């Protein structure tokens, strides 16, 4: 029997092709199982017909559905097989493979802080926020906005004022920030928060630590106020607990300390309120919750107050001076955003 020519094209007649394929392997096995003679063409050599070459749309979709079904079936079988093998091996089973995520593929950062690093501890003990951590100063926050704020921003300011204890909201009446700072210093404020507004929404935050502390500029996104959060209860005047997650690098430490310095030292646990600054992939998520422990293991959370996302744009040494001040860190998009797995906080 002559074998079919290798240039035999199998266009729109899938059924005929399969029937031809069935004949060949039977004859092969009777002759020789292992030898691949040059004349015999095993079924695996003929590639399966490419579905996209079928011109008829209905038939093409049917073939595709069949293909997907087959693939799903194979995948499930493979999974079951692996599971069976793992169970059969018991202890000897190979460890479960951990899927790769952007967080665990993060580019190595030399500035990750080692908690026992003497030099970093010394640096932090002598930085601008040290007076808060040694309990020499108590936080007093001045909250203001850009000039002529709209309703959303004023509501945001009020909610922030409720969330941060010992804070005062002042309207900005066209005053220069550089002139606001000496006035704030004379009134013994420790921090200034300026919410910048654009297109009727808050879009930027400037956090300036006084008297000579760093100035951090953030981009705000995804603001949800108290009214927009479903079933949100009213917050009380209790001092909240502050939770800072994932501020691991040296820059992250500085920013984390700035946030911590906004809130009073001793939280009032009877109020059961917690403020969380969660850093993930350089985005800082702010949440304000009231918690209730139902039993030892289960907690109920009720979200209060505003919810927003921050992203650090620059950290400037000294009080606000964007023109002549020296910057500790500036986000440079084209240089720093080259890798999806590189983060700075």
């Amino acid at each position, binding site marked *: 029997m002559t074998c079919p020519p290798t240039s035999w094209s199998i266009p729109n007649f899938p059924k005929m092709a399969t029937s031809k394929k069935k004949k060949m392997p039977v004859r092969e096995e009777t002759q020789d199982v292992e030898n691949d003679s040059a004349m015999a063409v095993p079924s695996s050599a003929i590639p399966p017909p490419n579905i996209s070459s079928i011109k008829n749309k209905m038939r093409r979709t049917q073939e595709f559905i069949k293909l997907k079904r087959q693939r799903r079936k194979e995948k499930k079988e493979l999974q079951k097989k692996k599971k*069976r*093998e793992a169970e*059969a*091996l018991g202890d000897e089973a190979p460890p479960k493979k951990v899927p790769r995520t952007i967080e665990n593929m993060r580019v190595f950062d*030399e*500035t990750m802080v080692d908690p026992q*690093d*003497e*030099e*970093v501890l*010394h*640096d932090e003990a*002598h930085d601008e926020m040290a007076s808060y951590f040694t309990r020499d100063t108590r936080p007093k926050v001045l909250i203001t906005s850009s000039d002529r704020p709209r309703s959303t921003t004023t509501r945001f300011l009020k909610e922030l004022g409720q969330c941060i204890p010992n804070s005062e909201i002042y309207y900005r009446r066209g005053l220069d920030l550089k002139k606001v700072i000496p006035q704030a210093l004379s009134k013994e404020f420790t921090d200034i928060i300026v919410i910048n507004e654009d297109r009727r929404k808050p879009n930027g935050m400037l956090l300036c630590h006084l008297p000579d502390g760093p100035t951090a500029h953030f981009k705000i996104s995804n603001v949800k106020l108290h009214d927009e959060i479903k079933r949100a209860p009213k917050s009380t005047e209790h001092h909240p607990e502050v939770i800072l997650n994932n501020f691991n690098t*040296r820059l992250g430490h500085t920013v984390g300390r700035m946030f911590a310095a906004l809130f009073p030292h001793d939280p009032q646990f009877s109020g059961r309120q917690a403020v969380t600054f969660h850093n993930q992939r350089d985005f800082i998520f702010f949440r304000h919750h009231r918690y209730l422990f139902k039993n030892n293991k289960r907690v109920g959370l009720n979200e209060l107050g505003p919810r927003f996302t921050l992203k650090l744009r620059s950290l400037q*040494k000294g009080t606000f001076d964007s*023109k*002549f*001040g*020296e*910057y*500790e*860190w*500036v986000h*440079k998009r084209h*240089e*720093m955003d080259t890798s999806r797995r590189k983060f*700075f906080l």
Partner: protein
Amino acid sequence: MNALYVDHLETFPSQNPPARKMAASMQHVYVGAATGVFKGVNLAKKTATNFQNVASLSKEEEICAMCWGNQQESQVCVGLKNGLVKTFDAEQGEFTDCTNCAGGEGRFTGLAKYQESLVTCVESGLLRVWKDEDKVDIEVGKDVCRMRQNHARPHQVATGGKENELKLWDIQQPEKPIFKAKNVRNDFLDLRVPVWVTDLQFLSEQKLVTCTGHRQVRVYDPATPQRRPALSVELGEYALTALSVTPDSHSVIVGDSQGSMVMVDLRMGKVQKAFKGFAGGIRSLQCHPSLPLVASCGLDRFLRIHDINTKEMLHKVYLKSKLNCLLFSSADFTQEQTETAKKQKRKLESSNLTEEDEDELWGSMSVVQDSKKADKTKRKSKSKKLKKPK
């Protein structure tokens, strides 16, 4: 190119003196930090060492200025915020001398050595030559930002600051400056151009180049009767904070407060190259005297070495504290680098195995067979064996 630098935390001088000596050998860059830590970096071996016990430092011991103590570059004079000037000996690896150079108000803006005596300048404008018998005082004007010494003519010193024009002084004639620069003409709105000299360098024997906080780079020639700058270039958007002249004296590298480092050609008056990789403001820059390298340090706690010609970042060292000033030694460390690289290569190549031993090694290893069918049968049999008895 980012090498992992090993940090040795040095202990007090009383402990481990031989280790200290070894570590002190041949530091290529000395860096002073804002916390007061004095560090040395060896670029060939890729190590960074602290020469003090970090815990014992206070905020008043912040390093403000540094200069070489002698021509051989084996001593470094370090000026601290509280007015002390310590001398560090490179061979011994510790601070050997400490003199109280307090006078005037403010931090040190410049340190120099003239005929074995220290020349210091503080922010309030007091320039003093600390001789043992008498002290020569020069009032330079207030708000001084920088003072530098002319290496070709050590008796000449230049100062400049905020609303304090560039002045060239001769230590031997302290009454009047040799050269006092004049401000440029009023700008197109007929407004006076503000003056703020942040850093200055001597270009050649006579010429001076300054960079200002208002983003200008200016070249002055005291030899000519013209007191206005021969060249004034305006660059960038942010205040320039550091300046260094390249070895060929035709161009200058400037750094600004947001971390952009740029090379300016002085003949054309244009920006030639920009160096990348900075995250924070640059506080100090220095070009190597002979090699085409530039070292920079700043507020982002990194020391970076760039190649001037290729713009490539050769070394990036994380030094944990904000860095204030640096000194680049004139030693040629690229030879050392190639030597260490060669040594490593030789180690890899010359293994103790001979050819016969290698053949034996390969022969003793089992042959890996590529048989899928065999595996399948094996698996089947395995699963048959390990089935749990019911």
